[in-house]
């Protein structure tokens, strides 16, 4: 019988994502062990399936919310976990990334899933700070104390430094090139 092969995008802490191929009836753990992401018997890493956009559905008045996005049981097969549909898998030591975003002297906080993209966080922040939707896209996230503006497709979990589970951003206006 021909095995169905699946490809998915694997994200993790401090690393670029990679493409992983595995059989649909492999367990996610088997695929991750083969890829060298986890060791046999290792249980302390949390595995998230899919990219999380829960925060975008937050009511405007909610403060200090937290995503429900649950880690999965990596002993299930790729097929059972719907990897073919979700496409993204994120391995991380943090259950949440506690994120603070500063703008106009105020800070909004949310505990995001590590599998949340910077683009989703930026969208969430623009809404929370009630920016005019026509001008909002000019405001982007910059890591506090740096000039680094991570790409919108990066997962928060990729940006977190080892030993921490938090991030701080400033919401800044893009500069129009002159000269």
């Amino acid at each position: 019988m021909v095995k169905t092969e699946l490809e998915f995008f694997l994200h993790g802490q401090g690393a670029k994502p990679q493409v992983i191929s595995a059989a649909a009836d492999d367990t996610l753990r088997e695929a991750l062990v083969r890829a060298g992401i986890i060791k046999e018997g290792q249980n302390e890493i949390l595995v998230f399936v899919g990219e999380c956009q829960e925060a975008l559905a937050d009511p405007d008045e909610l403060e200090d919310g937290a995503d429900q996005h649950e880690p999965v049981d990596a002993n299930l097969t790729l097929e059972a976990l719907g990897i073919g549909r979700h496409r993204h898998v994120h391995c991380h030591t943090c259950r949440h990334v506690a994120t603070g975003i500063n703008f106009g002297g105020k800070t909004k906080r949310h505990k995001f899933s590590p599998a949340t993209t910077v683009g989703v966080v930026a969208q969430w922040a623009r809404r929370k700070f009630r920016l005019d939707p026509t001008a909002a896209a000019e405001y982007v996230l910059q890591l506090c104390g740096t000039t680094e503006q991570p790409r919108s497709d990066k997962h928060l979990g990729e940006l977190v430094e080892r030993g921490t589970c938090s991030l701080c951003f400033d919401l800044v206006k893009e500069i129009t090139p002159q000269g």
Partner: protein
Amino acid sequence: MDKPDQRLFDDLSSAEFRSGAEKGLWGLPSPDLLPEALQWPKRILWIAAAPRPNASERFYIALDAEGYRSVSPTGTFWDPASKSSLDHAKRPKGRPESRFAKVFRTDWNGGTAFYHPYDRVAAKGHDAWPREQPHLIWTSNHTIVDYLEEFHSLLTCGDYLGV
């Protein structure tokens, strides 16, 4: 044999490029749209744009990627129908004085490059940009995905009005 810069352009097979392509953010044109005998360092890709009346939902760009990734690509919009640079009249337009309008201006350098630090021709002539826009200074750690994501963000922003 591929040149070193051409091998690096293999970033097109990276997870980041492929993930964006799967989401419909950018991609490679079908072979029938490409000019015959497209030689390195010329490459053609497309970037999705926000829907606007009478405007295409993707724009093609023709890049010269010589020296990639030590230096950034340079290039501009491209027309797969005429297989040449896209007429200025058919290019995406932005709200006057906006960042979008500045980046995609056609009154600079004949519209042959984007007015942006990620374009190596534009970057070369603007010594103040590294100080003013340090986050957009191209390094050898940057990839074509950084380039595509930046221009995709512009083509989907509120300041994009259509063609």
